[in-house]
């Protein structure tokens, strides 16, 4: 009877609190698709807004330059992407987009930046970074500078999500 009692007490005590675990696998890792690894041209990645956060959308058009990627971004999501819930915080505006190489690289867009939300700025910056990464020309300090018709925003980093 005494042993049984001890067993019951041990069982009850051991069921309490938060117990450490071993290492537990939990789903596959995310995949990096970039020329640096796979050696072939990646799809163009555009960042749109879904559920209030900025998320990447892949389009199978082959690798394009930073300017072309940003032009595609400004054209907005396709009807299929809209059906999936993607939207944009950027004005649908066409015009010359200029990439000036440098450290950091500078991107000039043909519209004012002040009215654009943080998510919209992130769309521009992240899409530019993705295009840079696909080209293999990564900004060395992780920032780019962004210029509109009104202000210049230096040291922009991609804050997806």
């Amino acid at each position, binding site marked *: 009877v005494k042993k049984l009692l001890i067993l019951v007490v041990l069982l*009850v005590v051991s*069921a*309490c*609190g*938060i*117990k*450490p*675990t*071993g*290492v*537990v*696998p*939990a*789903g*596959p*890792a*995310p*995949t*990096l*698709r*970039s*020329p*640096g*690894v*796979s050696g072939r041209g*990646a799809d163009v*990645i555009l*960042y749109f807004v879904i559920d209030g*956060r*900025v*998320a*990447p959308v*892949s389009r199978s058009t082959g690798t394009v330059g930073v300017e072309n990627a940003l032009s595609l971004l400004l054209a907005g999501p396709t009807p299929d992407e809209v059906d999936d819930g993607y939207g944009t915080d950027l004005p649908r505006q066409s015009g010359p987009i200029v990439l000036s190489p440098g450290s950091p690289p500078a991107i000039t867009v043909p519209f004012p930046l002040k009215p654009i939300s943080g998510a919209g700025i992130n769309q521009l910056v*992240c899409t530019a*970074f*993705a295009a*840079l*990464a*696909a080209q*293999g020309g*990564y900004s*060395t*300090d*992780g*920032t780019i500078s962004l210029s509109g018709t009104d202000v210049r925003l230096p040291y922009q*980093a*991609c*804050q*997806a*999500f």
Partner: protein
Amino acid sequence: VIRQVRSWLAGLRPRLVAAFAVIMILGATAAAGASYVSARNAILKGIQDQTMLKLRDQIVAYLPTVSLPPSQATLDAFASALKPSGALVVYHDLYSSSGMSPDQVPADLRQAVATSTYTQFQRVDAHGFPQFYVGIPVQTSSGTTTGLEVYAGASLDQQQAAIDELARQAWLVSALALPFAVGVALLAARRGWEIGSENAAVVADLPAGITAALDRRRLDIVVANLVGNALRHGAPPVEVVLRAEGGDIVLTVTDHGPGIADEVLPRVFDRFAKADTARARSEGSGLGLSIARENARLHGGDIVAANTGTGARFELRLPRAAGIGEAR
């Protein structure tokens, strides 16, 4: 005192009470414990899944902007993009300078992440404070490791507090079951004792010290038939009184019903005698009193029936020291 307690514990009632209480408390504890465990697991799974999914979503969103091999600045930018999680980004010997240091990550977890293409997590106990660590490796499109790894840690202090509260409530529920269990047990124990109190159907007056040598089973049959008959045809209270009269013991069973009809009285012990002809198919077999008298006679005794004016009285008379004859 101990002996007193022991002898008290040896009684039927305390054992019944104790058994009842133990069973109820075990049941309550098991139920409370089961719901505690499932609630605890739900809490832990909630925070763990949330941490892992959020970090993974962030990595997936950020990855297109990353090219390999990354510079120190790239790792720092990556880590700061993941800042809400306080994440650590590692690429071989390089690691992001803000947030966690690689030494904080459990070695087992780093080993597992470095050699697999699966998200891994581990819960550890850091000096009494539960911590949750998740490690997410980045794989190539061909399914090999890239060397890029992201780690995040979360304290489970809040969860611990919530779980402790759950445990406290679970114990409380079990403890609350104790007085309830004892109450029910006492009630159950009392029910068994209530025969003999004034409201009962049968009132027994059975003084100790009146003895006779007889076959207990036969006496059982006789008494059961007489009392059963009194309860069925008479009305309560049914009085069972035992007295010693000379060399005999006399057991009278008196009811407070209508009594026995005059025309039935002479043949009340006959087989298939029914007091009420209108209830010819009543529950009685008509054999009970006959069997009772046969048993009494086997002991050298007899049963006689009479009316008291307020009911019927059956008087069983048995010799105290009679040989039991063929019953043995």
